[in-house]
């Protein structure tokens, strides 16, 4: 019953190691936070999970019948060219592309799914707007809606609140929490905001150069890294 199972992963680019001995697993319904400093390899880990990179050592398996087209992904940065002509609806719909398997065109279900997800994220009114003319927070919601269309079992988010103002960030955490609790969607989120991790996560993976921690939230609070934070919280 494991959706994702990673054993002794060693990550990197073209032989250059970024992080090593990462072991973790994700069960249906989990809310996993991946924390760590900038450059510790969080995004690299996510790309490896998605199959965009292959691990240097170790292996990662998708279990419980999870297929690649059931994973939703919100990239850390989407380098969309400044002049790319695309309407919000076109972007969100593109998340549905692989839902219906090898079907080449969007089915009625796909279109309904895109509409529901735009509704969920409060961007229905923007559907005809041009993506590149939206604010950062709005663009992030559009990309999250696209990810939701693809995410039938699990949603991977790479720093979804980076660059958002505090209010928009709170909204984003709230939306994701609801997706996890109400819709039973499994969430894997990268963040370097440990306090948010402690607030929302069920499990935490803390990536450090040589010793990474993986466990549920209670265990994390017992560790040195976690203690610092719980102390700060109590003070």
């Amino acid at each position: 019953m494991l959706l994702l199972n990673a054993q002794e992963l060693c990550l990197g680019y073209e032989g250059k190691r970024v992080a090593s001995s990462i072991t973790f697993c994700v069960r249906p319904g989990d809310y996993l936070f991946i924390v760590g400093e900038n450059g510790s390899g969080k995004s690299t880990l996510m790309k490896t999970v998605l199959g965009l990179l292959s691990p240097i050592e170790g292996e990662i398996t998708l279990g419980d019948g999870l297929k690649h087209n059931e994973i939703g992904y919100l990239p850390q940065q989407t380098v969309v060219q400044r002049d790319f002509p695309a309407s919000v609806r076109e972007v969100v719909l593109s998340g549905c592309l692989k839902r219906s398997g090898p079907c080449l065109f969007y089915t009625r279900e796909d279109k309904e799914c895109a509409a529901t997800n735009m509704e969920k994220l409060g961007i229905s009114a923007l559907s005809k707007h041009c993506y590149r003319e939206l604010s950062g927070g709005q663009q992030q919601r559009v990309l999250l809606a696209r990810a939701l269309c693809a995410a039938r079992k699990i949603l991977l988010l790479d720093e979804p609140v980076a660059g958002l103002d505090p209010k928009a960030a709170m909204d984003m955490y709230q939306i994701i929490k609801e997706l996890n609790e109400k819709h039973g969607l499994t969430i894997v989120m990268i963040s370097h905001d440990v306090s948010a991790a402690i607030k929302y996560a069920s499990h935490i993976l803390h990536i450090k150069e040589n010793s990474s921690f993986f466990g549920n939230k209670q265990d994390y609070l017992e560790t040195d890294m976690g203690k610092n934070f719980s102390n700060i919280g109590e003070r």
Partner: protein
Amino acid sequence: MDIMIDKLILYFEYPFVRYALIVSVLISLCASLLGVPLVLKRFSFIGDGLSHVAFGAFAVAVILNPINIMLIIAPITVFCAILLLRTGQNSKIKGDASLAILSVSSLAIGYLLMNVFSTSPNISGDVCATLFGSTSILTLSLLDVWICIIMSIFVIGIFLLFYNRIFSVTFDESFATATGTKASHYNLLIAVVTALVIVLAMNLVGALLVSALIIFPAITAMRIFKSFKGVVICAVIISVVCSTTGLLISILAGTPVGSTIVVTHLCIFAIFTGVKQLTRGRI
């Protein structure tokens, strides 16, 4: 005006003028369709490089003299398209340098071959015709027209069938790959189809001006339209209208076909840019 219309009617009695019109509409349609993803993916350099390759291949084809020269030009150009795409994606080899080498060498080899082996008394005329497409569009045979029709149906079919995937891969390649679309397959598909269109379009505007047919409609449409679909539809309309107008003008005024068509595209581009500036000023 009446005289011009009479003149056009007279010209359209000739099959080669009708062939030229059919072929130019079809080729413009295909080139503009592909132009949109190529320009957006910053792949338009491939179009430019391939047009030079096609010129070199043309020289080889003329010498080998097969039943139809397309049979030689098409495979060589497709092969180079794949090669360019591979090196362009490989971060270790600089994509633009290898492209420059390939296109310059193709031009040089093409001219060299034509010079050494050509039996025609007017070599520079031949070279000029291949590069700038001055006459070949008016010397099409029925077979050429059929090849063109079949290839166009193929290109348009591919584009329509894979429209959604082409959008997804063009907009965000890593998301597309992460959710199970084989982005590299579609990049390859686009490159191969582009090669085919370039080979086709060489007849119309000549090797050097092919990239204009690919780039102009997309860039022009992007001035005004803000959705992918809008840009694709607008690019197709612009392209077909410009090429038809350019062809008619060149028949009436006796100017070179390729250059006239490109200048028509340039005019429309200028008009659209002007319109964009005006509307922006108002907001």
